[in-house]
């Protein structure tokens, strides 16, 4: 693809090429000069051949290259086996490369290069370089292999039912985890490097005949435009390519679950895997995708739909509950039934603060608890939860600083906030909650509505890679079909198409006659073949 050629060209251009020359020592010195004071780089010089007259040099970064592979399949072959086996070709020097490539180095991936700069890049990314005397090229041996975390269950996005393998920090492992779920030749993994210094590997994943070409092009162009020294995590990429940095809402989904990524690819989205992080970006994201959990599709539809509606309600509650409390207690107590109004007034009688301060204290305490709970190691974290939640709450009520109703409201808000499958959506709601509380204190119920309208305008403005953020509620491309996967999760047999608002290709997912076949076979006492 011309696009990628251009990309690599751009990355290499600033650094002038240093050709590898025939003089072995010169080459080695060049590399040593560039990698000066890099004590993790190993230079191994050795002699090969029956007469010990061929000088070889092996350069690699310790820790990044697989030492076993180097010892057993390269050094042993070249140093030991080559000495015992007599050379059949009399003038070896002319064909030394072929001989080594075909006969001596027993590894899967070999490349030939003629530029020392490329050689340096390769060494630093874990490959080994084999230099030969009197030869103006070098061999790159694929020896990448470093200690890595295994494929563990992800810490976030836990499900009861569903696979529990999660991404780890190595790009290749992550692409493999997705590839295992999509054995389709149309599934593409395009790799590129971002970061002038970090040269971080990035893979763009998509299914060629499903993905919306416009979205894919936008993703590629935006990643291409990044010119930064280093990429530390996929959050860097997310922030550099998102549509609006002013928005509190996440415009990309991030996940640690390969099944989520695969499902998104099948819907026609694009995924970006960044090396050194288990968090994979999925784009475009809409409000609805951030509320869907992979488990929704594994569970039976009625249960999944009910849970999803619960999640919608929780999201709204977590946003407006404290503000409603403030608005109703300070401005509109008449809205409550008389008994309840009396009770609320009674419980607040000894509280010396206005409702806003009361709510603010409790919400701020809750945020503190949350933050402390994340930082502390597991067992202590839960202790903090108990100390904070139970002891502090109880003590605050008994001391008369807050009313018991307020504690209930805050606790419910917190629980509702935790039920969101997307952490980044939940934290943006936490921020907006405080804004809304301030406006509720200022303008009562009208303030709450004011903030809701402002958020709605913002959401209507927002697009993620050209797709309206509120799809499929708005927008020209959405059809009633799309609502099968919004508030409810329709039975799979009725979800026959991919989301229409993404303009995905090959839009049919399920054969149209599947339903009839299933029904017919279902009649025979559930015995299906």
């Amino acid at each position, binding site marked *: 693809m011309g696009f990628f050629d251009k990309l690599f060209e751009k990355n290499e251009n600033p650094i002038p090429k240093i050709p590898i020359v025939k003089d072995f020592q010169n080459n080695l010195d060049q590399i040593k000069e560039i990698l000066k004071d890099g004590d993790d780089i190993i230079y191994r010089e050795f002699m090969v051949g029956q007469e010990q007259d061929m000088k070889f040099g092996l350069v690699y970064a310790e820790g990044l290259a697989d030492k076993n592979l180097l010892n057993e399949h390269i050094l042993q072959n070249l140093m030991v086996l080559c000495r015992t086996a007599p050379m059949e070709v009399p003038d070896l020097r002319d064909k030394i490369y072929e001989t080594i490539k075909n006969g001596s180095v027993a590894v899967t991936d070999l490349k030939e290069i003629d530029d020392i700069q490329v050689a340096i890049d390769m060494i630093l990314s874990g490959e080994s370089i084999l230099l030969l005397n009197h030869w103006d090229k070098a061999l790159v041996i694929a020896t990448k292999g470093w200690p890595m975390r295994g494929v563990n269950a992800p810490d976030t996005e836990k499900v009861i039912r569903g696979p529990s393998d999660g991404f780890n920090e190595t790009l290749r492992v992550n692409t493999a985890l997705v590839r295992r779920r999509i054995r389709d030749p149309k599934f593409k993994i395009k790799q590129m490097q971002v970061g002038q210094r970090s040269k971080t590997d990035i893979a763009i994943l998509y299914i060629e005949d499903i993905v919306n070409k416009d979205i894919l092009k936008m993703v590629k162009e935006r990643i291409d435009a990044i010119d930064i020294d280093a990429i530390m995590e996929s959050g860097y990429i997310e922030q550099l390519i998102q549509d609006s940095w002013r928005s509190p809402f996440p415009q990309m989904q991030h996940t640690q679950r390969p099944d989520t990524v695969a499902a998104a690819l099948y819907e026609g989205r694009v995924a970006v895997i960044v090396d050194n992080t288990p968090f994979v970006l999925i784009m475009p994201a809409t409000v609805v995708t951030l509320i869907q959990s992979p488990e929704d599709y594994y569970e039976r539809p009625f249960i999944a739909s009910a849970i999803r509606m619960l999640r919608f309600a929780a999201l709204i509650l977590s946003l407006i509950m404290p503000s409603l409390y403030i608005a109703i207690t300070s*401005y*509109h107590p*008449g*809205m*409550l*039934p*008389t008994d*309840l109004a009396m009770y609320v007034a009674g419980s607040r009688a000894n509280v010396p603060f206005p409702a806003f301060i009361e709510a603010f204290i409790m919400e701020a305490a809750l945020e503190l608890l949350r933050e402390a709970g994340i930082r502390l190691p597991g067992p202590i974290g839960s202790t903090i939860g108990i100390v904070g939640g139970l002891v502090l709450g109880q003590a605050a009520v008994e001391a008369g600083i807050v009313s018991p109703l307020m504690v209930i409201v805050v606790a419910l808000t917190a629980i509702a906030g935790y039920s969101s499958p997307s952490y980044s959506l939940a934290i943006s709601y936490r921020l907006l909650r405080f804004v809304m509380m301030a406006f509720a204190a200022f*303008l*009562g*119920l*009208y303030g*709450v*509505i*004011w903030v809701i*309208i*402002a958020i*709605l*305008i913002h959401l*209507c*403005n927002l697009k993620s890679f050209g797709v*309206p953020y*509120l799809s499929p*509620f*708005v*927008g*020209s491309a959405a059809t009633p079909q799309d609502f099968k996967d919004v508030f409810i999760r329709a039975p799979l047999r009725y979800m026959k198409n991919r989301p229409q608002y993404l303009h995905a290709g090959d839009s049919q997912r399920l054969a149209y006659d599947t339903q009839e076949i299933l029904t017919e076979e279902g009649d025979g006492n559930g015995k299906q073949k």
Partner: protein
Amino acid sequence: MGSRNNDVILSSQFAAILSVTIIGVGILSLPRLVVEGAGPDNWILLLAASGAALFVGLVMAFVVKKFPGKTYLELTQTMFGKPIGTLITLGFSFYLVIFCAAEVRIFGEVTKQYLLFNTPLEVLSVTLLVLAVYLARSGIETIARMAEVIFPIATVIAILMVLPVLPELDVSYILPIIRTPFMDFVKAVPTIFFSYLGIEFILLYGSFVKDTKKVHKSVLLTVGLVTWFYLSVTWLTVSRFGLIETTHITWPALELFKTVDIPGAFLENIEAFIMAIWIFSVFMTLAVAYFGASLTLSQAIKSKEQNYLVLPLLPIIYFVAMIPDNIAQVTEFMDLYAFYMGTLYITIIPVALLIMSFFKKDKRGKKSA
């Protein structure tokens, strides 16, 4: 046209915009006006007014269909000549500014009366105007999406809120039919017709519609929905309060919900929630009119940047809104204003455009939608 390239909406979005625009402050006093006009024949009066609204709506849809993609300025200029066209567009902008001001004032008064008794009118007005500025600056596509979101939510909630009133409905209040003297009836039609104020935006925003061929469907849908909404509110109010009492209440639609108790519910007075939905719809009316004012102004003064003109309009609208001493003055003024300016922009200009368009057949707009 708009300043950015987000200026294409669909006919379905067009219908949503029109619906949320038409249903605004008018809904609150509508039952009183209808009953004052025709007593038990209120629903016939409403249907007659909706017929008139449908007629002008279709006239405007016809013009839009005939000249797809033409802005208001281009339309009036091709039909009436350049100076008159500019004048009409400028006048439209002026008309919309006054319209916004009245909307803001009534919103402030009602909110103060029902929701926030001690908050100054000025704060209420300015905060709503700031929101409207935000939306008006965001462009027509965002407005369209906003309408798409708000319209179904408001409709569903409104229907849910009506349910508790249903058991107390009394059909006898809308009987007997056809007892109003014919001339009284005819005289009452224009007043109710102006509850469809906002329908003039068909001409203004028609240029944004992508599938222009379906514009008449949007108009039909809009008028149908709005009429259904007006009818149900009037019916509920009348059967709840009776004919005489309805005419004595300033905002009968709000009082209606003040009397509602949801059995077993935890909230007693749902009128605050009705207010909340009403704020949504007032806000949309305001924002759409505000956007229209800035759009026509930018067209008339040949400015490409509609969104730069939004903020300077805020103080003007605000001060105009603060001129009347009380709500009675506002409604009195609005009745006259709607009668003259409304008639001009809703009836006379569209019909004139229609007539002129028959003569201008050869010079049809070449610009594609």
